[in-house]
């Protein structure tokens, strides 16, 4: 789960990482009240989970109440790269002497957290990595030992910070690592990490991705999910406990098993189709689960045809067929379906489906045949 900047900052503050004081606001009035409380000058920042907010006009300094109102009015409701701004974060303007960069990523390849630090902050770190890789100090940390003080000193010295900043930068990185572990993050990034004229450091931005699988241990973080910012189908699927990802096409896809569904999307694309979604029904062959999944797929009105791709292992194809028939009794889809049943009890499953004579339901035995049929149907070619 990706957090908004201010949610990340609140999480940082909880772990003792210095951040500027601020308040979130969902309306212009709330934003003006927040600005009054924080004092001027302050910064009104659009809260969306996408980079490039500043360039898009989503971050503005307000020197007085009139400006705070003007900026809040302009920013709330603004569209930034397809993301609508529902919330702003109003924080006190910081005096900046230097901009640094710090991040910790869950390095799957090395199977250790990777800490990165650079004095070239405030810009795209991937561009820095390309132009001047030596400007980024990196260090892997043994997760059973954790981040020691010497790790912080090493990164600070290698990053060539001024002598008086070695200790504060080291302490900041240690706090950031402790946050990464305590909150079970997959990513924490601070860009810029600022140095103030008083020679203290603070996180001026926060990018945090949390591990969804660990949210059961972090109730506070689990509540940070913002359903209003999600795609309506993804929100509906989430509420029903389905694994669903919205895509751009017009062919609804349902299958059992993440790998098989990914493979199904690929095969459909190879036959010239465009998948509308990824939906893994798991081992769920019961009528309720299938009904629920079909409802989510069809709530996307771009969907012109649906492919059901089941390879029965422990899931039995006859149960899937019965589930589908029961689902069709509750919802009467208007788009064509192609159902491919293979694996355990496949012959029986196909027989049950054939006998039920569901309107506009076509069967297939192989994945390729099923993909070919559904692509034709989505293009309006009768099967």
């Amino acid at each position, binding site marked *: 789960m990706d957090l908004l900047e201010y949610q990340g900052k609140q999480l940082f503050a909880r772990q003792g990482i210095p951040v500027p004081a601020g308040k979130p606001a969902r309306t212009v009035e709330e934003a003006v009240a927040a600005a009054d409380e924080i004092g001027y000058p302050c910064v009104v920042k659009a809260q969306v989970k996408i980079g490039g907010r500043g360039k898009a006009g989503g971050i503005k300094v307000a020197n007085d109440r009139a400006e705070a109102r003007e900026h809040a009015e302009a920013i709330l409701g603004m569209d930034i790269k397809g993301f609508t701004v529902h919330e702003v974060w109003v924080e006190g303007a910081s005096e900046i002497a230097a901009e640094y960069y710090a991040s910790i990523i869950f390095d799957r*390849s090395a199977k250790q957290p990777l800490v990165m630090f650079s004095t070239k902050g405030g810009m795209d770190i991937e561009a820095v990595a390309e132009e001047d890789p030596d400007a980024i100090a990196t260090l892997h940390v*043994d997760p059973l030992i954790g981040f020691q003080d010497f790790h912080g000193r090493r990164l600070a010295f290698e990053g060539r910070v001024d002598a008086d900043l070695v200790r504060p930068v080291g302490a900041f990185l240690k706090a950031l690592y402790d946050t990464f572990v305590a909150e079970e993050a997959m990513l924490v990034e601070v860009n810029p990490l600022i140095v103030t004229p008083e020679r203290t450091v603070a996180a001026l931005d926060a990018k945090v991705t949390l591990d969804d699988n660990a949210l059961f241990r972090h109730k506070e973080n689990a509540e940070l999910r913002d359903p209003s910012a999600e795609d309506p189908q993804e929100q509906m699927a989430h509420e029903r406990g389905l694994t669903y*990802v919205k895509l751009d096409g017009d062919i609804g896809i349902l299958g059992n098993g993440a790998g098989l569904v*990914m493979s199904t999307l690929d095969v459909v694309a*190879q036959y010239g189709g465009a998948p509308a979604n990824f939906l893994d029904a798991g081992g769920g062959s019961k009528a309720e689960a299938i009904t629920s999944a079909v409802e989510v797929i069809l709530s996307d009105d771009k969907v012109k045809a649906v492919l059901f791709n089941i390879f029965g292992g422990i899931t039995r194809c006859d149960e899937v067929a019965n589930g589908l028939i029961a689902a069709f009794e509750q919802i009467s889809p208007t788009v064509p379906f192609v159902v491919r049943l293979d*694996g355990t009890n496949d012959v029986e499953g196909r027989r049950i489906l054939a006998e039920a004579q569901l309107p506009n339901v076509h069967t297939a035995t192989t*994945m390729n045949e099923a993909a070919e049929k559904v692509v034709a149907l989505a293009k309006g070619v009768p099967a």
Partner: protein
Amino acid sequence: MSVIIDKDTKLCVSGITGREGTFHALNNKRYGTQVVAGVTPGKGGQDVEGVPVFNTFHDAVGATGANTAMVFVPPRFAADSILEAEDAGIATIICITEGIPAHDELRVYTQLKRNPDVRLIGPNCPGVLSPGKANVGIIPASFFKEGNVGVVSRSGTLTYQIGNELAQRGFGNSSIVGIGGDPVPGSSFIDVIALFEADPETELIVMSGEIGGDAEERAAEYIGEHVTKPVVGYIAGFTAPPGKTMGHAGAIVSGSQGTAAAKAEALEAQGVRVGRTPTQVAEIAVEILGG
């Protein structure tokens, strides 16, 4: 021959008294696997259809000589169970559980790596099947028979799909190994491919990868340098958009990292033929083995 599990496997199931644990433990037993024990804290002294249940892995190993563990407990208890099995001296640990927190997996991986005598398969995997010898996990054994194709995969149903297409063309398997779809798998493609390379029965290796991470790229390099047997590859997720987790926790394209195209290219650069559909994988395998 086979890899990881065989007729000498003595299995202890953690979570054997749970609904799923009981179902699959007994399923594995019916297949012929020696299921010698189960572990459920507080239920020591009971039995599950004749399989004795112990309070701890240490008790189970002491009483039965179990050498393999299957972990079937909920995600919040799984890391603890894996570490307990290792502490009790179990050499092969197969973890089926899906949804274990990534930081737990990191700690477990780091600890187990320090013990050269232990191997973890999974988590979030369907297990291992050595047809005709033993089945540990949830792989539907009826599709597979003994043979010379070794399969290693990050996904469950996709493995069955590919395995079934091979079976329909008359091929069997030395072993089928699900390494799982999580970001920190206990064993990598390289670990399992090395076992297949050394296994005299295996004549062809099929590896089925997917988006996310760089395990396939690293395997490609390893194959180029160390593997003499033919390898056929498959990669799922060519159409997956970046930044979205596609079902498996580990299946995510991050920026330009972990794409299916990059993985397929890396494999092909080392002479591995990569099928574009599961059917094509089976066709290539048949071509190579002369079916």
